[in-house]
């Protein structure tokens, strides 16, 4: 049988494509890949699954989609995997985020949280020392100290590009650390709260003083390349980035990178998110059995070893399995420990200081969220670009969120 798999164009996925031969050899099934950029992919698979187009046998989806789709009955439950597969080995946080009522609906291919990556040399030059679990105050101080705009060195690189998966992922997670929340228990938007104002003003001030130019256009990729070129002192972003910034082939600063947990403000929540790219099977596919075989292959322990054998331990898909972090070989990878700690410190079911009706750290797992957050993200991005004040951005965000929530019938 030939499986059609929609996937995102991230490095780990590309690697998986190259290794498909192993799967075909083992099972005799062929695989057709549809590789798309993240936003295009999400739009494509969402259209297809909601219209029941049936074009894909396996879709690459995230923690956001999985519970929503599963609730609509669009995904095949993954509860009958073989014992070898060892479902219990999946990190609990990941498993929790990809399950509905205790049943797994998508198997994590790799998982991530966020953390600080910083330049040890610059930190030293600034006369500071990064604690393992810094506060935002420290991070801000360090960022300002490291900044040297004439040399094109910017103390801190943060996401500014509009998008629910871009700046809003970062800002939502960060706002958790500042005690803010998206909605109160009655689904009332909270952008008019004091906490959000603090969060946004803090972020904008910090970026204006210590961030790179044009930060409002920087997403994960832009920041990654800035950091790799040695232009960032600190960068708070996905844990998977660690393997890129420490890879001497692409990175000019590979040997000068340190890691720390995402900062907090002492309110009890850290600003680190939790995400997994996972493989799910749309309900109604003709090739359910083969698809399950593929998912078991791709998210298995053997697959991790296959990658390690081919590309080295630093390149195996991280963040999915407990066993990986118990592996002696992997422990020598510099960022392994900090990644695990970050993942473990995120709690999607209880993300904020104040109580909320939704699940998800850097998102709220409701269908309307992506649309709303993208628009809110644009307002925040415009505020970062100096086109409006933080207060104006928040007011607009509040209005449009209230509007959309009403339209959706909350």
């Amino acid at each position, binding site marked *: 049988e030939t499986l059609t798999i929609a996937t995102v164009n991230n490095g780990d996925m590309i690697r998986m494509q190259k290794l498909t031969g192993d799967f075909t050899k083992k099972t005799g099934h062929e695989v057709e890949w549809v590789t798309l*950029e993240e936003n295009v992919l999400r739009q*494509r698979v969402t*259209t297809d699954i909601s219209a029941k*187009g049936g*074009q894909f046998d396996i879709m690459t989806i995230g923690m956001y989609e999985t519970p929503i789709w599963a609730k609509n009955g669009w995904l095949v439950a993954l509860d009958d995997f073989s014992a070898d597969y060892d479902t219990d080995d999946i990190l609990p946080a990941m498993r929790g985020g990809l399950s509905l009522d205790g049943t797994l609906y998508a198997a994590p291919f790799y998982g991530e949280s966020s953390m600080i990556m910083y330049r040890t040399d610059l930190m030293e030059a600034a006369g500071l020392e990064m604690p393992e679990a810094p506060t935002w105050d420290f991070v801000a101080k360090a960022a300002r100290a490291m900044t040297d705009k004439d040399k094109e060195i910017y103390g801190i690189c943060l996401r500014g590009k509009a998008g629910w998966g871009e700046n809003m992922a970062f800002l939502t997670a960060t706002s958790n650390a500042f005690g803010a929340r998206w909605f109160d228990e009655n689904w009332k938007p909270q952008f008019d709260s004091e906490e959000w104002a603090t969060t946004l003003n803090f972020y904008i001030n910090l970026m204006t003083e210590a961030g790179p130019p044009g930060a409002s256009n920087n997403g994960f*990729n832009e920041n990654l*390349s800035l950091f790799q070129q040695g232009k960032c002192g600190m960068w708070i972003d996905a844990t998977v980035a660690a393997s890129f910034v420490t890879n001497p082939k*692409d990175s000019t600063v590979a040997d000068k990178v340190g890691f720390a947990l995402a900062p907090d403000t002492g309110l009890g929540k850290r600003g680190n998110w939790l995400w997994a790219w996972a493989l799910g099977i749309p309900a109604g596919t003709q090739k359910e059995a083969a698809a399950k075989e593929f998912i078991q292959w791709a998210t298995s322990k053997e697959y991790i070893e296959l990658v390690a054998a081919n590309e080295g331990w630093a390149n195996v898909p991280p963040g999915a399995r407990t066993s990986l972090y118990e592996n002696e070989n992997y422990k020598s990878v510099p960022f392994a420990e900090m990644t695990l700690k970050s993942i473990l410190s995120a709690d999607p079911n209880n993300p904020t200081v104040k109580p909320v009706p939704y699940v998800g750290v850097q998102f709220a797992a409701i269908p309307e969220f992506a649309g709303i957050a993208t628009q809110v993200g644009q307002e925040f991005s415009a505020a970062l670009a100096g086109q409006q004040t933080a207060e104006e951005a928040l007011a607009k965000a509040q209005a449009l969120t209230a509007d959309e929530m009403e339209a959706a019938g909350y």
Partner: protein
Amino acid sequence: MARAVTNQRKIINTAAAWAIGLLIFFPILWTILTSFKTEATAIADPPVFLAFDWTLENYSAVMERSNYMRFLWNSVIIAGGSTVLGIIIAIPAAWSMAFVPSKWTKDILLWMLSTKMLPAVGVLYPIYLIFIKMGLLDTKIGLMIVLMLINLPIIVWMLFTYFKEIPGEILEAARMDGAGLKEEVIYILTPMAIPGIASTLLLNVILAWNEAFWTLNLTAAKAAPLTAFIASYSSPEGLFYAKLSAASTMAIAPILILGWFSQKQLVSGLTFGAVK
């Protein structure tokens, strides 16, 4: 105006035209150059223009990652097929409008053009549902039909303007010579309009080749053309300028070369009736 143009004038013209031409072309040139650089040289500061170690590694990386030939082949089939299909349907329609005009002709023509103003995103859902019903999702034929429909108004209009330049008397002569409608179109009209048909063909191949909304949304694996290919390169992780350039070059090269070879045809043919 056959007076000797002073060489000085000609030199100024030449200099100005080349400067502007190169300026306009520069983004493409830069992309092509970048595709032969390493990722590190691609972002070198200051940028290097020609003096770098030329490498093909980006092309091999791209080839390794995606099945370029399949995307290319799909693009060729879809763009070519939709155009041919469109021409076959448009020739009779354009014939009618050009040679048997009624008071509605102009309205029909403008109405046809106005169908192009439907915002594609607005009708994606309906079309998707229809495609599912008809089993056309991810098929080349489905895309051919959609692209044909999108471009049909343009094809009809272009052919209409070419046909109008053909003197009606010639078709009447054919009729007097005993030709039926079919013979008239096949033996007289079509061969006479070959240059116009060629330009139409060309323009529509270009438009169909570059169409990115429907080709992306209605395909998955089997029928995906180069627009889908490029969608997987738009923002990979890490340094990507060189790889992006290589992928871009590969996506545009076929049509660019086709366009250049048929430049004359396009220049003389793209009039939309602007020339009388």
